Each structure stands twice: as structure tokens, then as C-alpha cells.
């Protein structure tokens, strides 16, 4: 078990790949679940005159996909003590398939915790959707 944990957090170890097809009904369902009915997400007519020319998915919905991937990788430990810092760099449109994974860049110390620093990879085809990192404590005892 100890070796499994070590392997999971080795630099370069593969992280899971999570994939979701985002449609307008998916965006609408997230709007209903979150209460965020910002017209840039749910009103095609409003969105046509906005910066993207059409509706875009909520950034926080993409964040939920990132969280799913990190929880798969850590068997749920991300929910307990994980951390992410990211910038949304490109929108997700209805019809896009979003793929989320990551790469462990290094094991380092952050705020007194030993963490795996993960470069997040989130893309639609060749287009990057976000840039940033996750920080996952390696030992719960460090908390």
C-alpha cells in the first residue's frame, strides 16, 4: 500500500483522464443546479452580442470536472485537503468535449505541507481551457 501511494505521487506518474461532452442542456442543468442564470451562459440572444458571440459554459462547471479527476486520482482525498489555483483562458462552448487530466511536476513543500504539485491539463481538442496547478498533500498526518 505504501508503495502504491509512493507510485501515485511520483513525478511523472499518470493522472486519470476525465471527459465530458458539454451541450446547452448540460449548461442549463448546471445553471439550474447552481442558480447562476447569467445570460452569457443560458441566453443565446444575449450571448450573441457578448465577447464570445455565443453562450459559454460556467467556469465553475469546468472546475467540477477538474475536481472529479483529482478525486479519482486521490481516492477522494482531494475533497478533504486539496487545493487548486487556475486561470480560465478559453471558454467552453456547447458541443465541446472537455478533457481533464494532469501531470505531477514535483513534490514540494507548500505552507508547511508536503504536496504533489500537479500541472492541470484541460482542453477541448488542441485548445487549452485553463492553466493552473493543483496541490495535493501527500500525508494526511501533515494536516
Amino acid at each position: 500500500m505504501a508503495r502504491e501511494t509512493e507510485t501515485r505521487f511520483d513525478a511523472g506518474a499518470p493522472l486519470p483522464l476525465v471527459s465530458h461532452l458539454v451541450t446547452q442542456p448540460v449548461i442549463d442543468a448546471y445553471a439550474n443546479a447552481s442558480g447562476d442564470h447569467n445570460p452569457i451562459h443560458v441566453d443565446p440572444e444575449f450571448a450573441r452580442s457578448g465577447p464570445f458571440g455565443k453562450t459559454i459554459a460556467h467556469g465553475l462547471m469546468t472546475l467540477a470536472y477538474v475536481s472529479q479527476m483529482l478525486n479519482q486520482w486521490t481516492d477522494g482525498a482531494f475533497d478533504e485537503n486539496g487545493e487548486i489555483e487556475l486561470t480560465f483562458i478559453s471558454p467552453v462552448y456547447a458541443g465541446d468535449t472537455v478533457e481533464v487530466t494532469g501531470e505531477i511536476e514535483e513534490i514540494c513543500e507548500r505552507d508547511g505541507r508536503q504536496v504533489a504539485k500537479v500541472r492541470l491539463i484541460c482542453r477541448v481538442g488542441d485548445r487549452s481551457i485553463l492553466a493552473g496547478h493543483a496541490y495535493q498533500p501527500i500525508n494526511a498526518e501533515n494536516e
Partner: protein
Amino acid sequence: MPEYRRYEEVAVGDVYPAEPLIFEVGPDATREFLAATGGDSGDYGFEAGDRAPSMIASVYLIDLLKARMSPPGGIHAKQAIRFHRAVRIGDKLSLQARVTDTYVRKERPYVVSDFEARAADGELVSSGRITSIWGKDP
């Protein structure tokens, strides 16, 4: 027609909402969140005390952002969040944020806020930073 705040009215140090917002991690909200995001509900439970997905933060953060009274059309630009413990069905989270920076870049008006979510006993559940592009002033 709701009243929106103009960008020029937002100032560093503003706390929103004035009194902490209470968000209950309920079974229905959790089910709806998992269904909308394609999450695996098998990892979680729906009875009081069962573990809920921490990223339900993406729901309560929207409640928090609404308290800023920003105009429609705003965009979420950056997000940082740290989870300090798992959330559970029945948790009543107390939420509040404070504006820490405002700036204009490429003619886009940005607002940066730090937030905290605390359990009923005051324990820190999550904390982080939200950077948004303010919606077009009405």
C-alpha cells in the same frame, strides 16, 4: 429589476454580504449538482452526515458572488480554492468574502475577492480567491 452595483462603486475592503450567507449542504442540492456535472453519486451519500462533494463549492460560490450585485455578463477569470475538510450533508456553511483588489486590464474591469466558508462551529471548511471580470455597467 434588481439593482446592480457599478464597477466604480466597488472598493477594496468591501465585505459581501454584510452578514455571512448561510448555505446548507442538502441532499437535493447535492444530487442536482452531481447530476448536472456528471459526478459519480456512488462516491457520496445523501443522508445527514454522509460525505458530499467538496466542489459543491461551485454552487455556494455562486450564491456568494450574487451578493456582490454585479451586472449580468460578468466572467469568472481565475479561481483558487483550498479545502480544509470534507463537507457533509447537513453542514450549514457560513460564507463571506472581501474585495482585495480591483484593476483594469485590456479595458476589462477586474475584481479580486478572498472568501471563507466556515461550518456552524466556526471550523474553516474552504477558503480561496475569486477573480472576476465585472459585467457591463447598466
